[in-house]
Protein backbone atom coordinates (compact mmCIF):
# COMPACT_ATOMS: atom_id res chain seq x y z
CA UNK A 1 0.00 0.00 0.00
CA UNK A 2 2.82 2.38 0.92
CA UNK A 3 4.57 1.54 -2.33
CA UNK A 4 1.38 2.33 -4.18
CA UNK A 5 1.01 5.66 -2.35
CA UNK A 6 4.63 6.50 -3.04
CA UNK A 7 4.51 5.54 -6.72
CA UNK A 8 1.43 7.60 -7.48
CA UNK A 9 2.22 10.37 -4.97
CA UNK A 10 -1.17 10.01 -3.36
CA UNK A 11 -1.81 12.92 -1.06
CA UNK A 12 -5.05 13.23 0.91
CA UNK A 13 -4.70 17.03 0.95
CA UNK A 14 -4.64 17.10 -2.84
CA UNK A 15 -7.63 14.77 -2.92
CA UNK A 16 -9.60 17.10 -0.66
CA UNK A 17 -8.52 20.07 -2.78
CA UNK A 18 -9.75 18.33 -5.94
CA UNK A 19 -13.01 17.42 -4.21
CA UNK A 20 -13.36 21.04 -3.17
CA UNK A 21 -12.85 22.05 -6.80
CA UNK A 22 -15.54 19.62 -7.86
CA UNK A 23 -17.82 20.98 -5.14
CA UNK A 24 -17.41 24.49 -6.53
CA UNK A 25 -18.12 23.23 -10.04
CA UNK A 26 -21.18 21.37 -8.78
CA UNK A 27 -22.58 24.45 -7.04
CA UNK A 28 -21.76 26.78 -9.92
CA UNK A 29 -23.14 24.47 -12.56
CA UNK A 30 -26.23 23.59 -10.55
CA UNK A 31 -27.09 27.10 -9.37
CA UNK A 32 -26.03 29.11 -12.41
CA UNK A 33 -26.75 26.81 -15.33
CA UNK A 34 -28.69 23.60 -14.78
CA UNK A 35 -31.33 24.84 -12.32
CA UNK A 36 -32.28 28.12 -14.06
CA UNK A 37 -32.20 26.45 -17.45
CA UNK A 38 -34.41 23.57 -16.27
CA UNK A 39 -36.79 26.11 -14.71
CA UNK A 40 -36.84 28.11 -17.92
CA UNK A 41 -37.46 25.01 -20.01
CA UNK A 42 -40.20 23.86 -17.62
CA UNK A 43 -41.87 27.30 -17.71
CA UNK A 44 -41.69 27.31 -21.49
CA UNK A 45 -43.06 23.78 -21.64
CA UNK A 46 -45.92 24.77 -19.33
CA UNK A 47 -46.58 27.84 -21.45
CA UNK A 48 -46.63 25.77 -24.64
CA UNK A 49 -48.88 23.11 -23.14
CA UNK A 50 -51.17 25.87 -21.82
CA UNK A 51 -51.21 27.39 -25.31
CA UNK A 52 -52.04 24.03 -26.84
CA UNK A 53 -54.80 23.45 -24.29
CA UNK A 54 -56.18 26.97 -24.89
CA UNK A 55 -56.10 26.35 -28.62
CA UNK A 56 -58.02 23.10 -28.09
CA UNK A 57 -60.60 24.86 -25.91
CA UNK A 58 -60.86 27.69 -28.44
CA UNK A 59 -61.31 25.21 -31.27
CA UNK A 60 -64.08 23.52 -29.32
CA UNK A 61 -65.74 26.87 -28.61
CA UNK A 62 -65.38 27.82 -32.27
CA UNK A 63 -66.93 24.55 -33.40
CA UNK A 64 -69.76 24.96 -30.91
CA UNK A 65 -70.33 28.60 -31.92
CA UNK A 66 -70.30 27.84 -35.62
CA UNK A 67 -72.78 25.03 -35.03
CA UNK A 68 -75.00 27.38 -33.03
CA UNK A 69 -74.71 30.10 -35.68
CA UNK A 70 -75.63 27.59 -38.38
CA UNK A 71 -78.66 26.56 -36.38
CA UNK A 72 -79.67 30.19 -35.84
CA UNK A 73 -79.16 30.93 -39.53
CA UNK A 74 -81.27 27.93 -40.54
CA UNK A 75 -83.99 29.05 -38.13
CA UNK A 76 -83.83 32.59 -39.49
CA UNK A 77 -84.04 31.30 -43.05
CA UNK A 78 -87.16 29.30 -42.23
CA UNK A 79 -88.70 32.30 -40.48
CA UNK A 80 -87.83 34.64 -43.33
CA UNK A 81 -89.35 32.21 -45.82
CA UNK A 82 -92.47 32.03 -43.72
CA UNK A 83 -92.71 35.82 -43.51
CA UNK A 84 -92.14 36.06 -47.25
CA UNK A 85 -94.85 33.50 -47.99
CA UNK A 86 -97.30 35.27 -45.64
CA UNK A 87 -96.50 38.60 -47.27
CA UNK A 88 -96.94 37.11 -50.69
CA UNK A 89 -100.34 35.72 -49.73
CA UNK A 90 -101.40 39.04 -48.22
CA UNK A 91 -100.29 40.94 -51.29
CA UNK A 92 -102.14 38.49 -53.53
CA UNK A 93 -105.30 38.95 -51.49
CA UNK A 94 -104.99 42.73 -51.57
CA UNK A 95 -104.32 42.64 -55.31
CA UNK A 96 -107.42 40.52 -55.88
CA UNK A 97 -109.49 42.86 -53.71
CA UNK A 98 -108.23 45.89 -55.57
CA UNK A 99 -108.98 44.30 -58.94
CA UNK A 100 -112.50 43.46 -57.76
CA UNK A 101 -113.00 47.01 -56.53
CA UNK A 102 -111.68 48.40 -59.78
CA UNK A 103 -114.04 46.15 -61.75
CA UNK A 104 -116.99 47.30 -59.67
CA UNK A 105 -115.98 50.92 -60.12
CA UNK A 106 -115.52 50.50 -63.86
CA UNK A 107 -118.93 48.86 -64.08
CA UNK A 108 -120.56 51.68 -62.14
CA UNK A 109 -118.78 54.29 -64.31
CA UNK A 110 -119.99 52.50 -67.42
CA UNK A 111 -123.53 52.36 -66.05
CA UNK A 112 -123.48 56.05 -65.18
CA UNK A 113 -122.09 56.89 -68.60
CA UNK A 114 -124.82 54.93 -70.30
CA UNK A 115 -127.45 56.62 -68.23
CA UNK A 116 -126.11 60.10 -68.91
CA UNK A 117 -125.82 59.25 -72.61
CA UNK A 118 -129.44 58.13 -72.63
CA UNK A 119 -130.54 61.37 -70.95
CA UNK A 120 -128.46 63.35 -73.35
CA UNK A 121 -129.87 61.45 -76.29
CA UNK A 122 -133.43 62.05 -75.14
CA UNK A 123 -132.65 65.71 -74.63
CA UNK A 124 -131.05 65.99 -78.05
CA UNK A 125 -134.04 64.25 -79.69
CA UNK A 126 -136.43 66.53 -77.89
CA UNK A 127 -134.43 69.56 -78.88
CA UNK A 128 -134.23 68.28 -82.43
CA UNK A 129 -137.96 67.77 -82.46
CA UNK A 130 -138.49 71.24 -81.17
CA UNK A 131 -136.06 72.53 -83.76
CA UNK A 132 -137.78 70.62 -86.51
CA UNK A 133 -141.14 71.98 -85.38
CA UNK A 134 -139.89 75.51 -85.22
CA UNK A 135 -138.14 75.13 -88.55
CA UNK A 136 -141.21 73.68 -90.14
CA UNK A 137 -143.24 76.42 -88.56
CA UNK A 138 -140.98 79.01 -89.97
CA UNK A 139 -140.99 77.34 -93.29
CA UNK A 140 -144.73 77.25 -93.29
CA UNK A 141 -144.86 80.85 -92.27
CA UNK A 142 -142.50 81.76 -95.04
CA UNK A 143 -144.48 79.81 -97.53
CA UNK A 144 -147.61 81.41 -96.35
CA UNK A 145 -146.15 84.86 -96.61
CA UNK A 146 -144.84 84.18 -100.05
CA UNK A 147 -148.18 82.91 -101.18
CA UNK A 148 -149.84 86.08 -99.93
CA UNK A 149 -147.44 88.18 -101.93
CA UNK A 150 -148.20 86.26 -105.01
CA UNK A 151 -151.82 86.73 -104.49
CA UNK A 152 -151.31 90.40 -104.11
CA UNK A 153 -149.68 90.59 -107.34
Amino acid at each position, binding site marked *: MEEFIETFHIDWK*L*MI*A*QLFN*FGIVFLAFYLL*AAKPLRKL*MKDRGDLISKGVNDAKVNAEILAKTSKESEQILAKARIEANKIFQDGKKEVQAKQNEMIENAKIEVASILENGKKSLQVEKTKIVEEANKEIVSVSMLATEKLMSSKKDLNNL
Partner: protein
Amino acid sequence: MATNNLEQNIEVEPVHETTIYAEPVFHVGSFQITNSLLNSWLAVLVIIVFCLVLRKNLKQIPGKVQHIFEILLEGALSLCDQVTNDRKITLKIFPLVISLFVFILVNNWLGLLPIVGSVGFLANEAGHSVFIPIFRAGTADINTTLALSIAIVIASNIFGIITIGIWKIFNKYVNIKALGGIVTKFRKDKNVIIVAPITFFVGILELIGEMAKVASLSFRLFGNVFAGEVLLASMGAIFLYILPTPFLFLEVFIGLIQALIFSLLATVYFTIASQDHEPARSEDHSGGEHEEHESHEEKLASV
Protein backbone atom coordinates in the same frame (compact mmCIF):
# COMPACT_ATOMS: atom_id res chain seq x y z
CA MET B 1 38.17 14.01 -23.17
CA ALA B 2 35.38 13.75 -25.70
CA THR B 3 33.55 11.34 -23.45
CA ASN B 4 33.75 13.81 -20.56
CA ASN B 5 32.25 16.57 -22.74
CA LEU B 6 29.42 14.26 -23.71
CA GLU B 7 28.74 13.44 -20.05
CA GLN B 8 28.72 17.12 -19.21
CA ASN B 9 26.26 17.78 -22.06
CA ILE B 10 23.97 15.02 -20.79
CA GLU B 11 24.07 16.50 -17.30
CA VAL B 12 23.30 20.00 -18.58
CA GLU B 13 20.44 18.85 -20.89
CA PRO B 14 17.22 19.16 -18.85
CA VAL B 15 15.21 15.99 -18.39
CA HIS B 16 11.71 16.25 -19.85
CA GLU B 17 9.62 13.17 -19.29
CA THR B 18 5.98 12.58 -18.49
CA THR B 19 5.83 11.37 -14.92
CA ILE B 20 3.07 9.17 -13.56
CA TYR B 21 2.40 11.66 -10.78
CA ALA B 22 1.63 15.38 -10.83
CA GLU B 23 4.69 17.49 -10.14
CA PRO B 24 4.60 20.18 -7.47
CA VAL B 25 4.88 23.67 -8.91
CA PHE B 26 5.08 25.54 -5.60
CA HIS B 27 4.24 25.06 -1.93
CA VAL B 28 1.90 26.88 0.42
CA GLY B 29 3.20 25.79 3.80
CA SER B 30 3.16 22.03 3.73
CA PHE B 31 0.57 21.95 0.98
CA GLN B 32 1.85 21.10 -2.47
CA ILE B 33 0.33 22.98 -5.38
CA THR B 34 0.73 20.53 -8.25
CA ASN B 35 0.39 21.28 -11.94
CA SER B 36 -2.77 19.13 -12.01
CA LEU B 37 -4.32 21.18 -9.24
CA LEU B 38 -3.51 24.37 -11.15
CA ASN B 39 -5.17 22.91 -14.22
CA SER B 40 -8.19 21.95 -12.13
CA TRP B 41 -8.46 25.51 -10.86
CA LEU B 42 -8.31 26.70 -14.43
CA ALA B 43 -11.07 24.23 -15.30
CA VAL B 44 -13.18 25.52 -12.39
CA LEU B 45 -12.62 29.08 -13.59
CA VAL B 46 -13.60 28.19 -17.16
CA ILE B 47 -16.76 26.43 -15.97
CA ILE B 48 -17.75 29.30 -13.66
CA VAL B 49 -17.24 31.88 -16.43
CA PHE B 50 -19.22 29.71 -18.85
CA CYS B 51 -22.03 29.29 -16.31
CA LEU B 52 -22.13 33.04 -15.58
CA VAL B 53 -22.27 33.90 -19.29
CA LEU B 54 -24.99 31.31 -19.84
CA ARG B 55 -26.96 32.56 -16.81
CA LYS B 56 -26.71 36.14 -18.04
CA ASN B 57 -27.92 35.28 -21.53
CA LEU B 58 -30.79 32.99 -20.58
CA LYS B 59 -33.92 33.99 -22.48
CA GLN B 60 -37.44 32.63 -22.76
CA ILE B 61 -36.94 32.50 -26.54
CA PRO B 62 -33.54 30.83 -26.77
CA GLY B 63 -30.64 31.95 -28.94
CA LYS B 64 -28.37 29.53 -30.81
CA VAL B 65 -26.01 28.80 -27.90
CA GLN B 66 -28.83 28.41 -25.40
CA HIS B 67 -30.68 26.20 -27.85
CA ILE B 68 -27.67 23.90 -28.25
CA PHE B 69 -27.22 23.80 -24.49
CA GLU B 70 -30.91 22.97 -23.98
CA ILE B 71 -30.67 20.13 -26.50
CA LEU B 72 -27.59 18.79 -24.70
CA LEU B 73 -29.30 19.05 -21.33
CA GLU B 74 -32.41 17.25 -22.59
CA GLY B 75 -30.22 14.59 -24.22
CA ALA B 76 -28.30 14.10 -20.98
CA LEU B 77 -31.55 13.82 -19.04
CA SER B 78 -32.96 11.21 -21.42
CA LEU B 79 -29.64 9.29 -21.32
CA CYS B 80 -29.81 9.35 -17.54
CA ASP B 81 -33.43 8.20 -17.75
CA GLN B 82 -32.38 5.21 -19.84
CA VAL B 83 -30.05 4.12 -17.03
CA THR B 84 -32.28 4.83 -14.04
CA ASN B 85 -35.65 3.97 -15.65
CA ASP B 86 -37.13 6.40 -13.17
CA ARG B 87 -37.50 10.13 -13.72
CA LYS B 88 -37.59 10.84 -9.98
CA ILE B 89 -34.20 9.23 -9.41
CA THR B 90 -32.86 10.95 -12.53
CA LEU B 91 -33.91 14.36 -11.29
CA LYS B 92 -32.29 13.70 -7.90
CA ILE B 93 -28.90 12.57 -9.20
CA PHE B 94 -28.77 14.54 -12.45
CA PRO B 95 -27.16 17.75 -11.07
CA LEU B 96 -24.33 15.74 -9.51
CA VAL B 97 -23.80 13.54 -12.56
CA ILE B 98 -23.86 16.39 -15.08
CA SER B 99 -21.46 18.45 -12.95
CA LEU B 100 -19.17 15.44 -12.76
CA PHE B 101 -19.32 15.06 -16.52
CA VAL B 102 -18.56 18.72 -17.15
CA PHE B 103 -15.74 18.80 -14.58
CA ILE B 104 -14.03 15.72 -16.05
CA LEU B 105 -14.63 16.81 -19.64
CA VAL B 106 -13.19 20.30 -19.14
CA ASN B 107 -10.23 18.85 -17.23
CA ASN B 108 -9.60 16.31 -20.00
CA TRP B 109 -9.84 18.86 -22.77
CA LEU B 110 -7.79 21.52 -20.99
CA GLY B 111 -5.04 18.92 -20.77
CA LEU B 112 -4.88 18.89 -24.56
CA LEU B 113 -4.20 22.61 -24.95
CA PRO B 114 -0.77 23.48 -26.42
CA ILE B 115 0.31 25.34 -23.26
CA VAL B 116 -0.24 22.26 -21.12
CA GLY B 117 2.88 20.20 -20.80
CA SER B 118 5.01 22.61 -22.83
CA VAL B 119 5.11 25.75 -20.68
CA GLY B 120 7.07 25.25 -17.48
CA PHE B 121 10.28 25.86 -15.65
CA LEU B 122 13.49 24.05 -14.89
CA ALA B 123 14.03 22.66 -11.44
CA ASN B 124 17.00 20.97 -9.94
CA GLU B 125 16.20 17.49 -8.69
CA ALA B 126 19.02 15.28 -7.37
CA GLY B 127 21.62 17.12 -9.41
CA HIS B 128 19.56 16.89 -12.60
CA SER B 129 17.90 19.77 -14.33
CA VAL B 130 14.26 18.70 -14.69
CA PHE B 131 11.61 20.43 -16.76
CA ILE B 132 8.39 20.84 -14.77
CA PRO B 133 5.30 21.89 -16.74
CA ILE B 134 3.03 24.43 -15.04
CA PHE B 135 -0.10 22.72 -16.26
CA ARG B 136 -1.02 19.06 -16.50
CA ALA B 137 -4.48 17.61 -17.16
CA GLY B 138 -6.39 17.47 -13.87
CA THR B 139 -7.52 13.94 -14.55
CA ALA B 140 -3.96 12.83 -15.36
CA ASP B 141 -3.37 12.84 -11.61
CA ILE B 142 -4.57 9.81 -9.66
CA ASN B 143 -5.41 12.06 -6.70
CA THR B 144 -8.21 13.71 -8.73
CA THR B 145 -9.72 10.53 -10.10
CA LEU B 146 -9.38 8.70 -6.78
CA ALA B 147 -11.03 11.56 -4.90
CA LEU B 148 -13.90 11.68 -7.37
CA SER B 149 -14.34 7.88 -7.32
CA ILE B 150 -14.35 7.67 -3.52
CA ALA B 151 -16.81 10.57 -3.38
CA ILE B 152 -19.10 8.89 -5.91
CA VAL B 153 -19.10 5.52 -4.17
CA ILE B 154 -19.75 7.10 -0.77
CA ALA B 155 -22.41 9.41 -2.21
CA SER B 156 -24.15 6.49 -3.94
CA ASN B 157 -24.34 4.62 -0.62
CA ILE B 158 -25.65 7.72 1.15
CA PHE B 159 -28.23 8.06 -1.62
CA GLY B 160 -29.15 4.40 -1.06
CA ILE B 161 -29.55 5.01 2.66
CA ILE B 162 -31.84 7.99 1.96
CA THR B 163 -33.84 6.07 -0.66
CA ILE B 164 -34.27 2.57 0.80
CA GLY B 165 -33.06 2.96 4.35
CA ILE B 166 -29.92 2.35 6.38
CA TRP B 167 -30.95 -1.17 7.48
CA LYS B 168 -31.23 -2.47 3.92
CA ILE B 169 -27.95 -0.87 2.85
CA PHE B 170 -26.24 -2.28 5.94
CA ASN B 171 -27.68 -5.73 5.20
CA LYS B 172 -26.46 -5.45 1.63
CA TYR B 173 -22.88 -5.63 2.94
CA VAL B 174 -23.20 -7.34 6.32
CA ASN B 175 -26.20 -9.55 5.80
CA ILE B 176 -27.34 -10.16 9.36
CA LYS B 177 -30.87 -10.67 8.09
CA ALA B 178 -29.74 -13.69 6.08
CA LEU B 179 -27.94 -15.19 9.07
CA GLY B 180 -30.99 -14.55 11.25
CA GLY B 181 -33.03 -16.39 8.63
CA ILE B 182 -31.28 -19.62 9.65
CA VAL B 183 -33.11 -19.44 12.98
CA THR B 184 -36.45 -18.07 11.74
CA LYS B 185 -36.86 -19.98 8.48
CA PHE B 186 -35.17 -23.26 9.27
CA ARG B 187 -38.46 -25.02 10.07
CA LYS B 188 -40.04 -23.99 6.77
CA ASP B 189 -37.03 -24.54 4.55
CA LYS B 190 -34.01 -26.64 5.43
CA ASN B 191 -32.01 -25.25 2.49
CA VAL B 192 -31.69 -21.94 4.33
CA ILE B 193 -28.77 -23.35 6.31
CA ILE B 194 -26.77 -23.50 3.05
CA VAL B 195 -28.24 -20.43 1.34
CA ALA B 196 -27.90 -18.01 4.28
CA PRO B 197 -24.10 -18.26 4.73
CA ILE B 198 -23.68 -17.92 0.96
CA THR B 199 -25.90 -14.81 1.03
CA PHE B 200 -23.81 -13.44 3.90
CA PHE B 201 -20.63 -14.09 1.93
CA VAL B 202 -22.16 -12.38 -1.12
CA GLY B 203 -22.66 -9.32 1.11
CA ILE B 204 -18.95 -9.29 1.93
CA LEU B 205 -18.23 -9.61 -1.79
CA GLU B 206 -20.45 -6.58 -2.31
CA LEU B 207 -18.28 -4.67 0.17
CA ILE B 208 -15.16 -5.67 -1.76
CA GLY B 209 -17.06 -4.74 -4.92
CA GLU B 210 -17.45 -1.19 -3.62
CA MET B 211 -13.67 -0.93 -3.28
CA ALA B 212 -13.31 -2.39 -6.76
CA LYS B 213 -15.66 0.31 -8.01
CA VAL B 214 -13.31 2.97 -6.61
CA ALA B 215 -10.30 1.30 -8.19
CA SER B 216 -11.93 0.71 -11.58
CA LEU B 217 -13.40 4.22 -11.81
CA SER B 218 -10.24 6.01 -10.78
CA PHE B 219 -7.71 3.94 -12.72
CA ARG B 220 -9.80 3.82 -15.90
CA LEU B 221 -9.98 7.60 -16.12
CA PHE B 222 -6.45 8.21 -14.93
CA GLY B 223 -5.03 5.48 -17.20
CA ASN B 224 -6.78 6.77 -20.31
CA VAL B 225 -5.86 10.41 -19.81
CA PHE B 226 -2.29 9.70 -18.73
CA ALA B 227 -1.81 7.24 -21.61
CA GLY B 228 -3.09 9.94 -23.96
CA GLU B 229 -0.50 12.38 -22.64
CA VAL B 230 2.28 9.84 -23.03
CA LEU B 231 1.07 8.96 -26.52
CA LEU B 232 1.01 12.61 -27.60
CA ALA B 233 4.47 13.21 -26.12
CA SER B 234 5.83 10.12 -27.88
CA MET B 235 4.31 11.07 -31.22
CA GLY B 236 5.66 14.60 -30.80
CA ALA B 237 9.12 13.18 -30.17
CA ILE B 238 8.94 11.10 -33.36
CA PHE B 239 7.60 13.80 -35.71
CA LEU B 240 6.63 17.10 -34.13
CA TYR B 241 3.44 18.91 -35.24
CA ILE B 242 2.43 16.41 -37.95
CA LEU B 243 2.26 13.06 -36.20
CA PRO B 244 0.53 14.16 -32.96
CA THR B 245 -2.35 15.86 -34.87
CA PRO B 246 -4.53 12.77 -35.53
CA PHE B 247 -3.82 11.54 -32.02
CA LEU B 248 -4.84 14.92 -30.67
CA PHE B 249 -8.27 14.48 -32.27
CA LEU B 250 -8.37 10.95 -30.89
CA GLU B 251 -7.62 12.33 -27.43
CA VAL B 252 -10.42 14.89 -27.76
CA PHE B 253 -12.76 11.99 -28.48
CA ILE B 254 -11.31 9.87 -25.66
CA GLY B 255 -11.70 12.79 -23.25
CA LEU B 256 -15.40 12.98 -24.09
CA ILE B 257 -15.89 9.22 -23.92
CA GLN B 258 -14.10 8.90 -20.58
CA ALA B 259 -16.12 11.73 -19.05
CA LEU B 260 -19.28 10.06 -20.34
CA ILE B 261 -18.25 6.63 -19.02
CA PHE B 262 -17.36 8.00 -15.59
CA SER B 263 -20.62 9.90 -15.20
CA LEU B 264 -22.73 7.07 -16.63
CA LEU B 265 -21.11 4.58 -14.26
CA ALA B 266 -21.79 7.00 -11.41
CA THR B 267 -25.45 7.03 -12.53
CA VAL B 268 -25.47 3.22 -12.57
CA TYR B 269 -24.03 3.08 -9.04
CA PHE B 270 -26.60 5.55 -7.77
CA THR B 271 -29.40 3.60 -9.45
CA ILE B 272 -28.20 0.26 -8.02
CA ALA B 273 -27.91 1.80 -4.57
CA SER B 274 -31.45 3.15 -4.74
CA GLN B 275 -33.00 -0.23 -5.63
CA ASP B 276 -33.92 -2.82 -3.07
CA HIS B 277 -32.82 -6.26 -4.28
CA GLU B 278 -33.36 -7.99 -0.95
CA PRO B 279 -36.67 -9.80 -1.70
CA ALA B 280 -35.38 -11.16 -5.01
CA ARG B 281 -32.30 -12.67 -3.33
CA SER B 282 -33.41 -14.07 0.01
CA GLU B 283 -37.16 -14.63 -0.17
CA ASP B 284 -37.33 -16.74 -3.31
CA HIS B 285 -37.26 -19.90 -1.27
CA SER B 286 -39.86 -18.70 1.27
CA GLY B 287 -43.43 -19.12 0.09
CA GLY B 288 -44.90 -16.67 2.62
CA GLU B 289 -43.08 -13.67 1.23
CA HIS B 290 -43.52 -14.58 -2.40
CA GLU B 291 -46.27 -12.02 -2.86
CA GLU B 292 -44.04 -9.23 -1.58
CA HIS B 293 -41.39 -10.27 -4.08
CA GLU B 294 -43.95 -10.26 -6.88
CA SER B 295 -45.16 -6.78 -5.95
CA HIS B 296 -41.54 -5.56 -5.99
CA GLU B 297 -41.04 -7.07 -9.44
CA GLU B 298 -44.25 -5.43 -10.64
CA LYS B 299 -43.07 -2.10 -9.25
CA LEU B 300 -39.77 -2.44 -11.07
CA ALA B 301 -41.56 -3.42 -14.27
CA SER B 302 -43.91 -0.44 -13.99
CA VAL B 303 -40.98 1.88 -13.42
